[in-house]
């Protein structure tokens, strides 16, 4: 059923049951919001989206007020503009003035609205901080409740998306504060470290600890890609600065997961830059010197063999060990050399013993295109069907 309403003087037919905010958005009328997020049930508690309705004594919150027949709505009357500015000033009165060093400056919804409404920090505002900065030991999520505006998006995201109910509200009045569980560290409140609360937080109250201080929003390049952990296939944005992945942000357009991610997807990215990464092709020394493969290729047993020799000639062999000139030592080589060695060995094995004595294990971590190539390499070039991967494991 449709109802007839007016928004800013324009007659509109709206679907019954929709909120003022939804109808306004459908007709490209912007109403500012803070606690509202399209993915979450509206709570109507921040008062940023107040509008004037003709004949109403108070200004209702557009996110929770349904439209009905004959409603005449003003979204930017002088009165509501003033109300919104006052709402923002009340928030700023109780918010640290540290945008210069705040990690989310540039992508903070409170900062954007304060700027838009030219809100001033009231002289009578609270001084100093009330809560410990970085108050939670969770290794991924940085908690600074001084910056919380009590919009409760974290609570809704945890309850409605993650369905874990970690966040809740404690105390009342000026002391009202978001707490994990009954005021315990997040992990003790059964937090799964998915970071949904961070993704939905409109300010710097909840931010990402791993990337803290590493880049401003305008300094990063965002690259939309697909997660490399499990088979769900979540997509997200990698945040890149100076050829380094410094973080992961939700991408609301992701087909499978929307804004949702798990701890591995959102925070398990630092392996990318781990110092253990292999960065040069390496071959065992015996392959360069032309000798045969050491009797046992188990490096541990090779080392222990050498150590047992050293027990007779201790001083000499400890020097020899540090020289690392054994046939089983790694030697870094150029790609050309490494690939020549591999090609020689595989071609020789093929001609001497047959293609079916060679085997290829592809990777469920690699691209489709790469797995296709392994299949082609084994079948077209080598002539064997000995190809498999870890699907069975």
């Amino acid at each position, binding site marked *: 059923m449709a109802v007839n309403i007016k928004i800013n003087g324009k007659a509109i037919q709206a679907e019954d049951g929709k909120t003022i905010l939804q109808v306004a958005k459908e007709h490209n009328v912007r109403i500012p919001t803070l606690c509202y997020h399209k993915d979450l049930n509206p709570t109507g508690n921040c008062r940023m989206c107040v509008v004037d309705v003709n004949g109403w004594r108070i200004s209702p919150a557009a996110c929770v007020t349904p439209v009905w027949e004959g409603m005449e709505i003003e979204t930017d009357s002088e009165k509501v503009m003033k109300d919104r500015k006052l709402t923002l000033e009340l928030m700023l009165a109780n918010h640290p003035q540290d945008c210069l060093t705040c990690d989310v400056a540039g992508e903070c919804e409170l900062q954007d609205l304060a700027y838009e409404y030219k809100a001033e920090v009231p002289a009578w505002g609270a001084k100093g901080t009330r809560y410990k900065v970085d108050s939670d030991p969770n*290794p991924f999520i940085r908690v600074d409740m001084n910056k919380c505006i009590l919009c409760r998006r974290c609570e809704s995201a945890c309850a409605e998306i993650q369905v874990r109910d970690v966040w809740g509200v404690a105390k009342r009045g000026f002391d009202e504060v978001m707490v994990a569980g009954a005021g315990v560290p997040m992990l003790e409140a059964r937090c799964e470290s998915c970071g949904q609360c961070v993704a939905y937080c409109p300010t710097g109250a909840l931010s990402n600890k791993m990337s803290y201080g590493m880049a401003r929003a305008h300094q990063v390049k965002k*690259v939309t890609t697909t997660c490399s952990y499990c088979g769900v296939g979540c997509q997200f944005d990698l945040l890149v600065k100076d050829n380094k992945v410094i973080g992961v942000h939700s991408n609301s357009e992701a087909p499978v997961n929307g804004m949702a991610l798990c701890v591995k997807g959102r925070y398990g990215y630092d392996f990318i830059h781990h110092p253990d990464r292999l960065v040069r092709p390496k071959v065992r020394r015996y392959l360069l010197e032309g000798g045969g493969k050491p009797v046992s290729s188990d490096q541990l047993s090779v080392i222990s063999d050498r150590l047992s020799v050293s027990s007779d000639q201790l001083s000499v062999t400890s020097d020899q060990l540090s020289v690392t000139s054994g046939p089983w030592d790694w030697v870094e080589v150029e790609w050309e050399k490494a690939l020549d060695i591999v090609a020689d060995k595989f071609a020789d094995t093929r001609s001497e013993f047959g*293609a079916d004595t060679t085997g290829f294990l592809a990777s469920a971590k690699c*691209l489709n295109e790469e797995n296709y190539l*392994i299949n082609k*390499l084994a079948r077209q070039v080598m002539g064997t069907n000995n190809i498999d991967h870890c699907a069975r494991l």
Partner: protein
Amino acid sequence: MAGLAASFGSGAMSNSMDDVAKQAQAFFIIGSNTTEQHPVFGTMLRQAVRQRGAKLVVADPRKIDITEFATLHLRHRPGTDIALLNGLMYIILEKGWEDKSFIDERTENFDEFKAAVMNYPPDVVSNTTNIPVEKLYEAAEILAVNNPMAVIWAMGITQHIVGVRNVMDLANLQMLLGNMGKPGGGVNPLRGQNNVQGACDMGALPNVYPAYQPVTSPEVIEKFAKAWGVKTKDEGGRVKDELTLSDKVGLTVTEMIPGILDGRIKALYIIGEDPVMSDPDTNHIRKCLSSVDFLVLQEIFPSETAVYADVLLPGASFAEKTGTFTNTERRVQMVRQAIEPPGDSKPDWWILSELAKKLMDRISDRVQKDAPHAGWEYKSTSDIMSEINAVTPSYGGITHARLDAGERLQWPCLNAERPGTPILHTKQFTRGKGKFMPIDHVPPAERPDDEYPMIMNTGRVLYHWHGGTMTRRSEGIMQVYGEALIEVNPDDAERIGLNGKTHVRVTSRRGSIEARAWVTDRVPPGMVYANFHFPEASANELTHASLDPVSKIPSYKITAVKVELV
């Protein structure tokens, strides 16, 4: 996948996560720790239960996290899935809850199947599974009267010697209830690795070319021989075998590595896998890998397997290359390069192309360079995808350009005009009619005895990934979950005197590990649960290589062990 191929003619998740989570009236999760292994899909299921009251039956010996949301949790004895499923289907038939018109119109072999199920009356099943009769009735009713119902499973079903039979029995259940081919229903095996579906689709399997085209089929061989410029056998009978495409099914991973010891495999090329951590019976794997003539490992880290490698080739991580992954619901999605590979490391497709060119120089006469897809001169993965489009029917219309334009494509997508296929089997099954398979319960390969009186179950945990090569190198993750934990039931903890002590030693017929115990009723009495994320205490030191006879999947989930104080 082999199980579904037998029942339906093709093996893949039939539905999409979105339609399952939004439209199923009931879920049956069996052998999937969904909230820890597929966390984001797990939260979608939690939402369905809490926000729209969907019913959830979980069958799992462990009290995994998702059981908090279960309408009913069946804690059946490990290795009795078939008895449980047949028992539920017995009750469904007894009550007349089966979908008779679906059975008549879309399936065959029902009578033979029904005769097998009739051997599983509730009292017998209750004895085998340790589930009370009334709970069997309760479960059968929830699953049968709430329609559509979606079945969800993972390796808890397949990693048994009867894995394929387990899967076929789940296919039986969904045909019996008419839950195939519609939103909110279906058979939904969750694929573990990010691109295990894609690796299978691309022919990284010993028995099929891309898109599951059999290596034994003369037509398929001719098709690929023409595309790749390899000779075919029918040229006057004078073409030698080594110049043709092989029509012999190759070895699986669980045959190749042990095949080293008897000389069947002499040179092995491994890309991005860590058999020392992820394959069963680590001691045996170490012995095999240290005996191979030549081992190449293409990796991003010096994994546990690198110790045995002759050559290490540095590959690129997902952040360093562009291409596609295919998720568990057959959705092909772009992976995009964000940074340059570190040092001299290279994208894996570049390494393979360069190697192939060098090999072709050395193996002369085999490849005719003028065939349409004989060459290896790829400038990008988009070039490779064009070749995939040409030889892989189900990927025929999936291009980087379409994906970059924002199209959402699930295979089969036969050509550039088609939109892709979110739900399989809507009108008919790939093989025509769905085939009911009579399946009987078989006890596990390894059973507890006096010396090894307990059962060890294995798997992953939320914070870590498989062999741990990546997640053990993630600082925050190690802060939260920094060492192997072995789950021990409080009753067993009391029996072995764990009171005040922290560590246990778990020993099987093949090996022994020591780790910190986590005393928890997540595991039932008589069972411990261990993971394989940490080399110093990997469960695979203990597991055994008994394989499902068809799929060759190891029976990871049931190992007889003894547990002692350290």
